[in-house]
Each structure stands twice: as C-alpha cells, then as structure tokens.
C-alpha cells in the first residue's frame, strides 16, 4: 500500500461527545470527550460493559447518530455531520439487517447499485464477494432460507462490497452459539485481513475482542480507560476497572512500604508483596496489587524457595480451600485467607492423576513470583 493510502485510511476521532436529552430536561452523556486514533488495516475493538457508550460511538462513526460536538476525521475530511449514505463507511449490523424481500445476490448488489455502477461491474463485484464468503451456491436464496452463520456471511459480503475505507462491526458474533462462534471468529478475521480493510468492532464479549482485535479500547461510562494490544490490556492493565473487567483477577489493597528504584514492597492485609520493579510513587501511598489467578501456584505442601526469591512469608499465603471448580483443562480454587478474603487461583491440569490432590477444606499454600504483580494506583 502506498503512503498516501496509509494517510487516507487513518481514522481520527477527535474529542467526540454525545449527549442525550430526556423528556424531563436532564441530559445523559453517553460518549464523554473521546479521542482515538485508528491505524490503517487494523482491527480495533471497543470493549466494555452494557451502557458504556461503545454502541453510541459506533453509531456516530456510521452516521446514525450525530455527535453533540467533536470531529471524525477520515482521510482528512470531517465526517461527523454527514449522513450515512454520504460516508465511505459500511456497517455490519448485529441483527444482520438483510433485506428479506431480496435474494442474497440482490442484497450484496444493493450498495453497488446505489453508486450507479454499470451492470457488468456490479455483477463482477458481487460474484467476487460471493466467492470471498463462499456462498456462491446460495446466490438466489432469500435470507430466511439461510442458516444464521450463512446470513452473517451475506451481511459481511454486503458491507464489504463497496470497498469501504472503514468497516464497522456491531457485536458480530453475538447471535451465534459457542461452537459456531469459535469457527466464525477465525474466518471473519481472515476475510477482513485478506481484504485489508480497517475495522472497528464493538463487543461486550472479552473473548471475542481478544481473539479478533489487534488493538482493544476498554470503555466505561463514556470514556476510554485504556488502549492497547490484547496482551498489554491483560498483563498491564492501567486501572482497577480494566484489571477487573478483563479475565479473572485478585485485587488486594495495601500501602507502599518500601520504595526503591529496583523493587517495591507493599503491605496488604494478608501478605507482603515484593514487586521486582520500581514504580512512581512514595512510601505510605495507597496502592492496589493485581494478581492474575494463573500466575499463582498452589499446593498442600509449603513452597520450595529458589535462589533469589524473597524470604517467606513474602509473596506467599496460607489458607483453606473454600471452593473448587473443575473446568476440565484447569481448576479454579477459592482460597480463604486469614483476613477472610478469598484468593482465586487457577491451576492447569497438566497431570491426569496429580499426586497433590487438593480438596475442600484442605489447607493449602499459594505463592507467586516477584514479576507476577501489577501495581495499580487508580
């Protein structure tokens, strides 16, 4: 792709605000001053709980709602006030919104015909789309004659037919069952990447976002809390909310006891943490330690310390197993600590018949390495 293409496909959202007024006169701010840069060719996911404003943001990108203020710059042009049919952006709707009175072929051709293209070219492009989503044989069928997965592929083909500069996906896998979802995730990403279109998707499903997106933006209450790759979001969350929203996490509040450039120590209710890197802060500052369950090891026997590990009882706890959930590939333990707090630990079931068979009400030790924590100040 040429550099000029790169500059054009780059989407910049600039201080976008959306206020909704209700009949009693109060206003509700759905999107609160969001600024975001989307790179060309990437799949960017907006992830957040219901009501966080992600759908409002997506609809403003598509043109179905007008922002109260702010700009949406695509290719140097501010689109914020343009109608949907004036934007080089296409959307795949959550309900697919396939026109029930038109065949698959006509559904895909719909957008192309609006452009006034000659019949031959419309036909070529529709055929190309059908081939892309592998629905050539179903071209003459009507939407109600297709399965859910097939309908989704038609919706995708229809939204890609016009070769938009930006593709919007609204909860793309929401309507599918689990098995179909896993297959479709991969397929969808492959198709989008083979076409090379820049994509913004909205979802409340973490797995979907993590599996499909190259970068994720976590949203809550109309604001973006963190933007990063799936790994960055998971392993280095910026706030309590992000840490708690993505995956499972143990959050322990404490105070900064030792503040050195190469390590810090944090006093929490049940344990003293030794973190193997420095943080910006000062002694006595309240912080939260985020510890992922899979980074903790658990055993009925006390941990064997290796060279360089801080002495016990740093980065170690002892507790009683209050709950266990066997998931097949791993097991989740709820370890009740002295203060009454619950520590969540997951362990991969690498052995079919483990020697150390933990059960309810057993006493167990949990420990982790100095690199396992994330220290949060927000």
């Amino acid at each position: 792709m040429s550099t000029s293409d790169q500059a054009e496909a780059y989407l910049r959202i600039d201080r976008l605000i959306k206020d909704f007024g209700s009949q009693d006169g109060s206003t509700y701010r759905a999107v609160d001053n969001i600024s975001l840069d989307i790179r060309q060719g990437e799949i960017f996911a907006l992830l957040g709980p219901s009501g966080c404003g992600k759908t409002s943001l997506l609809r403003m990108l598509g043109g179905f709602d007008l922002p109260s203020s702010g700009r949406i710059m695509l290719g140097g042009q501010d689109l914020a006030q343009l109608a949907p049919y004036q934007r080089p952006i296409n959307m795949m709707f959550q309900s697919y919104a396939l026109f029930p009175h038109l065949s698959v072929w006509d559904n895909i051709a719909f957008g192309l015909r609006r452009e006034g293209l000659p019949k031959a070219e419309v036909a070529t492009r529709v055929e190309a789309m059908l081939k892309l989503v592998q629905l050539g044989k179903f071209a003459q069928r009507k939407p109600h004659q297709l399965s859910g997965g097939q309908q989704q592929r038609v919706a995708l083909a229809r939204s890609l037919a016009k070769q938009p500069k930006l593709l919007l996906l609204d909860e793309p896998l929401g309507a599918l069952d689990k098995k179909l979802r896993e297959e479709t995730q991969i397929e969808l990403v492959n198709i989008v990447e083979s076409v090379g279109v820049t994509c913004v998707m909205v979802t409340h499903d973490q797995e979907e976002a993590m599996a499909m997106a190259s970068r994720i933006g976590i949203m809550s209450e109309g604001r973006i809390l963190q933007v990063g790759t799936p790994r960055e979001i998971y392993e280095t969350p910026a706030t309590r909310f992000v840490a708690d929203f993505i995956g499972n996490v143990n959050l322990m509040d404490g105070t900064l006891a030792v503040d050195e450039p190469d390590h810090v120590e944090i006093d929490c209710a049940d344990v003293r943490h030794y973190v193997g890197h420095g943080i910006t802060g000062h002694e006595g500052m309240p912080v939260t330690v985020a510890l992922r369950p899979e980074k903790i090891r658990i055993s009925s026997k006390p941990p064997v310390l290796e060279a360089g590990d801080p002495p016990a009882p740093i980065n170690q706890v002892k507790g009683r197993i209050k709950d266990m959930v066997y998931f097949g590939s791993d097991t989740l333990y709820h370890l009740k600590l002295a203060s009454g707090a619950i520590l969540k630990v997951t362990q991969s079931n690498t052995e079919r018949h483990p020697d150390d068979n933990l059960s309810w009400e057993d006493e167990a030790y949990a420990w982790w390495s100095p690199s396992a924590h994330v220290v949060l100040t927000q």
Partner: protein
Amino acid sequence: MAISKTPHLSWSARTVVGVPYLWLLLCFMLPFLIVLKISVSEMETVVFKDLITWTDGVLQLQLKLSNYLFITQDDLYFRTYLASLKYAAVTTALCLLIGYPFAYFMARASKAVQPGLLMMVMLPFWTSFLLRVYAWKGLLSEGGWVAQVLDALHVDQVLIALALIPGPGQYMNTPFSLVIGMVYTYLPFMILPLYANLSKMDMRLLEAASDLGATAWVAFWKVTVPLSRGGIVAGSMLVFIPCVGEFVIPELLGGPQTLMIGRVLWDEFFANNDWPMASSVAVVMILLILVPLALFNKAQSDAQEARR
C-alpha cells in the same frame, strides 16, 4: 423523511407530517368547530345569522343557547340520551360476555387451527353489515327461523316478563331485536382486539402460575384477565362509542320503544330541517362520549408503547 435526527432533512419531514395533519384539521377539526358554531346560531331558512356583528361601533355576540336549554329541559331528549347510553352499555357487556371466552378459546386453540378460526370471524366482518342486520329482520319476523325456535322454547314468556317484547311472538321492533342486532353487529369488534391481545400472551406465564400453585381458574383471573386489560378496553370502546350514536340498527330492528339519539339527530336534520338543533344534539353526544373516547385514545397509545 429523517430517520435519524439529521436536521438537514426536516423540510421533507414537514411535508410527511403536514399533509395528513392538514387534511385532518380540515375535515375533522373544522367541521366540529362549525357544528359547535351552528348549534349556537339562529337559523333563518338555510342561512345562518352571523354570531358576531359590528353595528354602530358595538361588537355584538349572539349565542343562541336555547337549543341546549331545550335539550336539558325536554324530557324526550334526556330519556333518549339515557336510553342510548343504556343500550350501548348493555351491548358492550353482552359482547364482552360472549366475546371474551370466544377470543380466549380461539387463542388457546392449536396453532394450526387458529388462522382458520380467525378467517371465520373475519368473514362476517367483511360482509356488508347492512345486509346482516337486515337478515335479522327476516329471522325474527313471524315465521322466521329464530322466531319459530324461540316460540317453541317458550322463551317469549321470559322476554315478556323482562319487558323486552310486548307480546308473544312479537320479536321484531322491540328492545330485544335491537340488542340482538347490535350485539351481532359489534361482536367481531370485540373479538378481534381481544384475540390479538390474548394470542400474543406468553403461555409460559400460565405455566409459571401453575407451578406456583394456582389452579386454572385462579390463573385465569389473576394472570390472563389483568394482562388482557388493554384488549378489553380497546374492544369495549370499539363497541360502546359507536353504539351510542347508532342509527341503522335501531332504524331497521328497533321500534317506537327504542328511540336512540342517532335517530333523533337524523330526524332533526332531515325531517325537521332544524340544523342548529341537530348540531346541538351532536355536541351533547360528543360530550357524552368524550370520556370513553379519551379512554380509547389512551388504550391505543399504551398498546403502541408496548409494541416498542
């Protein structure tokens, strides 16, 4: 035709709203205002004297309220209004009594049969109501099928006792024939909204009720009926309000005993040529149905809210 709130399309939006609005104002609102005006006007042959005149620098407003006074004072008008309300109420009650179980059983029938049942209810509805009312003339006249059956079952004795018919075998032109005619005509108007409401009811609610210990009878009164309230109101208003002003059925099936206000209006207009009087009668009729009308409006907009 702005679908989203895009401001640059409002002129076409205004047309879409404006055209039907204008039509309604012209043909609905304006006539009512005119009726109102005429009801308080003095009428000289066919010309109405102006209400407001400017004579010698003095603005004069002449409102002839004598028509209204006449209505409130004259026994005939009062009794006729009362009778109309009474017959409308009785018809509504009977339609509800017969129509609710009907709609209920239709809604509970198997899914395969329901469209057929619906069609069978719609068929009389699509057939001219005038002809069907006329049919009752034939059925209740001497020698008519229904008349013969009623004679055979000695129902006429019961009806005489209830003062619904004047004598044995005289079923026509009585309160009895009138009510039968009205119930017959308006029954589909009660059944259809009720059916629409009941057929959309989630059957699992009744299963839940049963699971929590309710018998079928209790579940009916505590779950089904409250949920169908919207349909009951809609159906009742669809029957009651038009019945108050019914003209054709009392004319064909009613008699001297069953004078209704629709007939009074007609006579004032066509027979007596007293347009102001007819207008006054109309205005009072409108006032009478104002409350049910508001109820109906509310039921309609509630139903629309529920659909969203």
